[in-house]
């Protein structure tokens, strides 16, 4: 292409009208920057949210919640025949999961905590201390070792001023389902041995941030309901296997086709909804960026028409000495392409600088900026800019090639 005489003519034409060409290309620069920056902003937001959610994306949550998942009309939607996940059901779940993940049964209820004179409310979780490190991250302190030891969520610890070594009184009055008031007063006090790092919003609804984690023995001694778990979490090894594992569990525990006894859910549907919303938002932002490219297209079209009109006689010469119409068209399309290269090249460079600053300012992190999904908006924006330029040159190029050589030679 570089050696093509028509490309040489186009380059010289652009050079001859350099200021005008650069001014026209600025429109493309703005368009490319707008598209790239908007695209990168949307993608960085999506990546950040996905990253946050993906922390619990490997989790399948199984609850004894009695909400019916079957088709409408197959029974009541408010039945609460189940009071928890039974030992037998847990065994079936373990068997269905097999080597594909870790099964973590949980007890939980809402209750009141007291430290000295300070009172607070939150959720208390009872679990096997051996599962703690699989499921939670300790910010401070150690795991539960003794029966009266507990871990406290960061939010609760901050709001009640709880520190490691503090003793907390826990009300035996539960708001949850297991209520067996056999607990003795001595067991209602626990010693804090660790603070749990924030989990944030998770798909499994286990929010330890404003809660306390105790051993399952302490929990059942306090609230009863032994072997009647509130929830079972399955941490799968490979997230791609979630649908199959869910199906396995479902066929193992929900044997009654008319009445589903356990509800099985995961983060994927939540992730899908958020991803869809963010994709729509990104597309909307891209469309706004696209408007600037439409303006740029008009500007390129205008400059190309000026170039054709100024070179009427030259077009006449070319046609009269044996240049094919297609070759004249090619010459003007090259010119539009050169304007596109100038605009898209400059736009691409500026997109990286401006996009980086905008993402940093709006999202607060550039952690995801150079990820392929994000940075690929730069070449995409450049490509769109170049395509817009060439498309804008189509009509002027056609007009030039359709001129009558005799009229064109006269300069008409």
């Amino acid at each position: 292409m570089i050696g093509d005489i028509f490309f040489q003519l186009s380059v010289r034409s652009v050079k001859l009208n350099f200021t005008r060409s650069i001014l026209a290309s600025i429109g493309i620069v703005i368009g490319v920057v707008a598209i790239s920056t908007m695209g990168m902003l949307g993608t960085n937001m999506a990546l950040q949210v996905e990253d946050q959610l993906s922390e619990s994306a490997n989790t399948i949550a199984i609850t004894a919640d009695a909400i019916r998942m079957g088709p409408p009309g197959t029974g009541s939607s408010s039945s609460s025949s189940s009071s928890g996940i039974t030992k037998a059901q847990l065994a079936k779940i373990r068997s269905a999961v097999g080597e594909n993940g870790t099964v973590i049964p949980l007890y939980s209820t809402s209750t009141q905590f007291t430290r000295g004179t300070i009172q607070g409310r939150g959720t208390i979780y009872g679990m096997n201390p051996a599962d703690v490190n699989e499921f939670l991250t300790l910010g401070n302190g150690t795991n539960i070792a003794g029966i009266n030891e507990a871990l406290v969520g960061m939010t609760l610890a901050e709001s009640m001023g709880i520190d490691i070594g503090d003793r907390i009184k826990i009300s035996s009055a539960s708001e949850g389902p297991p209520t067996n008031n056999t607990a003795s007063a001595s067991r209602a006090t626990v010693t804090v041995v660790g603070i749990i790092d924030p989990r944030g919003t998770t798909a499994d609804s286990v929010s330890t941030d404003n809660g306390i984690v105790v051993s399952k023995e302490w929990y059942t001694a306090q609230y009863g309901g032994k072997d009647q778990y509130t929830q079972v979490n399955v941490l799968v090894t490979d997230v791609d296997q979630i649908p199959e594992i869910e199906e396995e569990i479902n066929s193992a525990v929900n044997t009654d086709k008319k009445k589903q006894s356990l509800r099985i859910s995961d983060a994927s549907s939540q992730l899908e909804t958020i991803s869809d919303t963010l994709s729509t938002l990104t597309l909307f932002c891209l469309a706004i960026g696209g408007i600037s490219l439409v303006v740029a297209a008009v500007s390129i079209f205008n400059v190309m028409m000026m170039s054709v009109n100024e070179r009427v006689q030259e077009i006449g010469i070319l046609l009269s000495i044996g240049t094919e119409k297609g070759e004249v068209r090619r010459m003007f399309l090259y010119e539009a392409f050169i304007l596109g290269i100038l605009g898209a090249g400059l736009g691409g460079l500026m997109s990286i600088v401006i996009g980086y600053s905008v993402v940093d300012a709006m999202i607060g992190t550039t952690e995801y900026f150079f990820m392929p999904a994000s940075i690929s908006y730069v070449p995409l924006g450049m490509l769109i800019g170049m395509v817009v330029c060439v498309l804008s040159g189509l009509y002027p190029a056609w007009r030039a090639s359709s001129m009558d050589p005799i009229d064109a030679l006269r300069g008409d």
Partner: protein
Amino acid sequence: MSDTPLIQLVDVTKTYHLESGDFMALRGVSLDIMENDFVAIMGPSGSGKSTIMNQLGILDVPTSGKLSIDGRDVSTMTPLERTHLRRDTIGYIFQKFYLIPLLSAYENVEYPLILKNKTRDTTGRTAAMLEAVGIDKEMSEHRPNQLSGGQQQRVAIARALVNDPKILLCDEPTGNLDKKTGFQIMDILCNLHRKGKTVILVTHDPKVAEYALRTIRLDDGRIAEES
């Protein structure tokens, strides 16, 4: 040399449809031009000189009648075929030179070769053509606007000759030149005729027409006199 005319016009008419009504620029012109002929076409303004040159240069087609060039009927050819015939058979020399302003003198001469061969000239033909018309290497690097009228016309002649066309169409080739340069250009054309080219020139100047073997006078779209 064949007895078939290189160019043959049979009862050619050309009508332009204008807002003020139809205007007939050529009215049944019949003419044979043999290979290696040297024809001068003369006539007053509006007599049809430019129209007949456009027909001979295949820039336009007759409204009726038949025009054959190098044995091919142009009215039956596609626009692309006409473009290729023009590129390969005809060398056009204009009064206003009509060099491509963005190209150097060398590139202007090389241009028709590139059109034909789709590649840059590596044979030295361009340089040889420029040398033949008296344009040296340094001058050939100049753009047209850096050359005098005479130099530009020499470059235009070299451009017209570079594809070795059978026909040279010259539209007032000395019209924009001083007398001395005009004669130099005519000497080049005569020399080309001697080398076998068919030269057709349109001129107002009887002195220029004297170089031709025969002169055709047009008047009101008809051949008024042939000598």
